[in-house]
């Protein structure tokens, strides 16, 4: 791959973050003991993370709970200081919080509200206009465009606390993008939303990316977000980057098999899960064997031979050959060495 013509918009170099946490035994006795003598443990939330994100790229940051995704995003957004390592966002060190950077950057957190609870979104946006010093004509045009894209124009004058979760998140997105940032950090932007709202936000993000070409870093627990939005993903496991590359390559690297599914004719003989599994085990890994359905993970080179054997050996009414589900592969990679909750 050729190096990018322009320097990366986001770059992290061996970025690490350690937290010192107090370990307390459970119960009252543990609390009393901790009052006088405390045990501290050092937790490495992010370990020497290095990567770059270029203009117009939307990179998915994937990992189990406690893998360090949010910590990494917060370091790059300048919210917390790293323990070691370096980072550059639009040429600035993020945790020095230079206003020239903060004017061109946005952070959106699905679990935290930035808008004032008791005010209508329109008022909150006026405050943001002042904060980001957005000229009035541009401000009005951007509001119109964003609220139209997200279909929340009618809700502009309603207090934030009276909006639905989905509408609130859409308003948060408008608020974050009002100043047309060049770098956008999205931490779980669709968490807790229903499927329709999730889809609307995904479509909006893709359109925004296409039209404005910012560098975007997205964390999400929803594999559908990652699959639909990101061509490139970074997988974090216990603070370490274990994969950084195209989403499509994850399949070839971590799932060297295809899924062969045979739907069986129940009327012909007594094919049970066990008997099908016993007959076909040699063709590949039996991933599922239920009455009427057998699903095999077959090495890619063996797919044709295995499919033929399935058709020969079993009373098949239908057979499908598919790529494994990307979400399931990623989840398996994340789980491989555990993923302790933090």
């Amino acid at each position, binding site marked *: 791959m050729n190096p990018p013509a322009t320097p990366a918009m986001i770059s992290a170099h061996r970025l690490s973050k350690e*937290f010192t946490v107090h370990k307390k035994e459970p119960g009252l006795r543990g609390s009393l003991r901790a009052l006088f003598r405390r045990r501290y443990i050092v937790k490495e939330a992010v370990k020497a993370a290095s990567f770059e994100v270029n203009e117009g790229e939307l990179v998915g940051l994937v990992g189990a709970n*406690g893998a360090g995704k*949010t*910590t990494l995003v*917060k370091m790059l*957004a*300048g*919210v*917390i*200081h790293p323990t070691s390592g370096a980072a550059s966002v639009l040429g600035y060190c993020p945790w020095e*919080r230079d*206003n020239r950077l*903060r*004017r061109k*950057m*946005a*952070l959106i*957190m*699905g*679990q*935290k509200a*930035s808008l*004032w609870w*008791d*005010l209508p979104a329109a*008022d909150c946006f*006026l*405050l943001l206009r*002042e*904060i*980001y*010093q957005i000229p009035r004509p541009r401000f009005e045009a951007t509001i119109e465009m964003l609220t139209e894209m997200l279909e929340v124009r009618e809700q502009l004058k309603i207090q934030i606390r009276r909006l639905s979760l989905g509408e609130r998140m859409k308003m948060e997105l408008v608020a974050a993008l009002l100043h047309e940032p060049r770098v956008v950090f999205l*931490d*779980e932007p669709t968490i807790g939303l229903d499927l329709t709202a999730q889809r609307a936000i995904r479509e909006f993000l893709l359109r925004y990316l296409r039209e404005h070409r910012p560098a975007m870093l997205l964390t999400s627990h929803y594999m559908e977000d990652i699959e639909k939005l990101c061509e490139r993903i970074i997988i974090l496991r216990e603070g370490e980057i274990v994969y950084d590359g195209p989403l499509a390559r994850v399949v070839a690297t971590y799932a060297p098999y295809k899924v062969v599914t045979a739907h069986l004719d129940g009327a012909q003989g007594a094919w049970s899960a066990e008997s099908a599994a016993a007959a076909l085990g040699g063709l590949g890994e039996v991933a599922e064997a239920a009455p009427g359905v057998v699903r095999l993970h077959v090495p890619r080179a063996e797919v044709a031979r295995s499919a033929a054997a399935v058709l020969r050996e079993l009373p098949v009414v239908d057979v499908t050959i598919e790529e494994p589900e990307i979400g399931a592969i990623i989840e398996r990679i994340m789980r491989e060495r555990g993923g302790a909750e*933090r």
Partner: protein
Amino acid sequence: MRYLRLYLYFLRFSFSRSMEFRFDFFFRIFMDSVYYAVNLGFYGVLFSKVPTIGGWNFDQAVIFVAGYLLLDAIDMTVFSNNMWQLPSLINRGDLDYYLVRPVSTLYFVSLRDFAANSFVNLLMTIGILAWAIARYPGELGPASIAAFAVLLLAGCFLHYVLHITFLLSAFWLHAAAGVQQLFYVIREFSERPHQIYKGWLRQVLVTVLPVALFASIPAHALFDGLDLALALHVVAVAIGAWLLLVFVWSRGLRAYVSASS
């Protein structure tokens, strides 16, 4: 100018929000009126037993009390809501959004919530101070009154700086209730004339923990005149306190862990 425009937004939002909660609006007026009456009454009782306290007679003490009531009302109106919320912003990781905005985060977290429901109290205390000065039997020239007003504003600034510096301990302690309480205990020293304290305690109260500069020193300047040494002292303490706050704030942000989402 930009920060002034931002503050006008804070004011506008705060007023429109507080009008929604009528009970709280009137309750605060009632509670604070009781507080003012108790404070003035306390000195009334004291002066029925003694002719002077710390060299001040009853009329002077009334001006001093009116001064610290005004300071308290300014604090309640401008800073208090923000101060109450600050430890929770730090502990719950809600400082995150303020840190990514291109404005001073310290300015934002200190001033964003104007307690519009205390505004009536602020007007009441201005009235009490004006009444206290008007009923004073001695001579108070306009220059002395102006110096008193400026020093009282410096006292408000020092009150804010000292209070927030205490609260910033939440960056390290993760619980600021005890420290908040400690600040209120120390602040009680400001509600008595500083002349009653002697020796090292008095030195501490005008320098390291300069609560005497909140209202007592301004009243002293009003009655006895403001000399250059005292003016320089107030300026030096204010600058020193501000530099300390900026230092603690920047160290605090380095220690800020933000709560995991």
